[in-house]
């Protein structure tokens, strides 16, 4: 069975009441759940209690944005403290991060950038993925990231780089259909080439979303309902990815009013219909 889910940033009873009945999986981002107390990011006790209640009704996955796994200097250690707390208190199905960096020499960039696909970056990432796999006894997945800059290039293609990380670590992949649409729109890759090369057996989770086009570039902000063509891409890819366990609709917390709670619930039903059709096919 392929679960259908949505991300959730916590402390929103209306979201839980309206959306949760339609979700098999709830994706939480440790960074987004955290609040600063005494200058230290912590997951509030009430948030943990809320998530434990949700965990009785749906699977929960961790999806980080702040680990900065591709930073040359170091990963963000404070992220681990948050993930540690969540894995201690919740039954986490799996854990994932973006294949990008958000900090340089400890300075927050305000965005996420894609590293060049070099052997140096590959060795660094492989070492770190292995360390994460040892730290958490749960599957670990990596998600490819949208770039608004020219392709930084390197020794591998985009799919080849992901495949090599998978080959050397055994980690899984999140295939974000919308991210791929962004990269195709922005001239960074061909969807057919990417998908034909990517090890689709390593894909455990898929994401779909919709953002905006700004000055001709498709931007990875999760602010809207999913376009029909994105759902069509999902339906095409799913049968070729035999190990997908969940499809997640992503909407940024501040953008939830754009879609509305009932709108998000409707999106989950649209996605479920597509997933069911793809499985049947």
């Amino acid at each position: 069975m392929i679960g259908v889910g949505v991300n959730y940033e916590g402390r929103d009873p209306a979201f839980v009441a309206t959306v949760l009945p339609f979700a098999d999986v709830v994706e939480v981002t440790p960074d987004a759940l955290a609040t600063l107390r005494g200058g230290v990011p912590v997951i509030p006790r009430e948030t943990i209690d809320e998530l434990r209640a949700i965990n009785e009704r749906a699977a929960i996955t961790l999806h980080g944005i702040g680990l900065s796994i591709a930073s040359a200097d170091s990963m963000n250690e404070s992220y681990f403290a948050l993930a540690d707390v969540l894995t201690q208190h919740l039954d986490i199905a799996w854990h994932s991060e973006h294949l990008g960096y958000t900090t340089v020499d400890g300075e927050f960039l305000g965005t996420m950038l894609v590293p060049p696909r070099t052997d140096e970056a590959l060795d660094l990432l492989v070492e770190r993925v292995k360390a994460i796999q040892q730290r958490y006894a749960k599957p670990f997945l990596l998600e490819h990231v949208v770039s608004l800059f020219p392709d930084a290039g390197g020794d591998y293609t985009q799919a080849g780089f992901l495949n090599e990380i998978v080959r050397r670590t055994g980690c899984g992949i999140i295939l974000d259909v919308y991210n791929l649409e962004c990269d195709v729109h922005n001239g960074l890759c061909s969807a057919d080439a990417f998908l034909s090369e990517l090890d689709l057996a390593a894909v455990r989770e898929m994401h779909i979303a919709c953002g905006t086009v700004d000055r001709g570039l498709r931007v990875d902000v999760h602010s809207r309902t999913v376009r029909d063509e994105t759902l069509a891409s999902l339906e095409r890819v799913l049968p070729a990815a035999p190990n997908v366990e969940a499809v997640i609709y992503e909407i940024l917390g501040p953008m939830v009013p754009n879609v509305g709670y009932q709108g998000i619930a409707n999106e989950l039903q649209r996605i479920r219909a597509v997933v069911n059709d793809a499985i049947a096919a």
Partner: protein
Amino acid sequence: MQSLREHQRAMRDLIRGVAIADDPYIVAASRCIGLDVTRDTIAGWRKLRLDRNCRLTTAILRQRGLYDDVFASIVSESPFIEELSNAFLEAAMAQGDTLVSTVARFEQAILRDDDVERWIDWPCNPYDVLSALLTGDEIPPLENAPHRTVVSRSIEGMFRVAQHV
């Protein structure tokens, strides 16, 4: 090709407008429209978060045409909304407008995550200002009527008007 560390430092400096490294990729990146979109997305995201977390201060700054100047003077790159908000409110306080400063100090007191009781003195009736900002209306002409608000998590509704001062 640059080392990973060199590449990432060059991208950081490029996005911040500090420097354009002498590297073909960084030079190409400096000329792409994606750089402007990235910078605007970073700023837009910060504004969105501040609008949600510092509703009163952003409202009064916008009413008075001061928002962009204050936003540009924020001294913080923190990913944490608590630190970003504090830096924004400090910048608003330093802007020089007495009522803006009062609203920012009041909002900062409301957002503090501690049990300390704080007093904020107003040059006018705070309800006239707060109701206008919360409903999106223009602040009406204000009478000179000093008030004091007491802000504390132990007070229902977070604050009360304690006395005229």
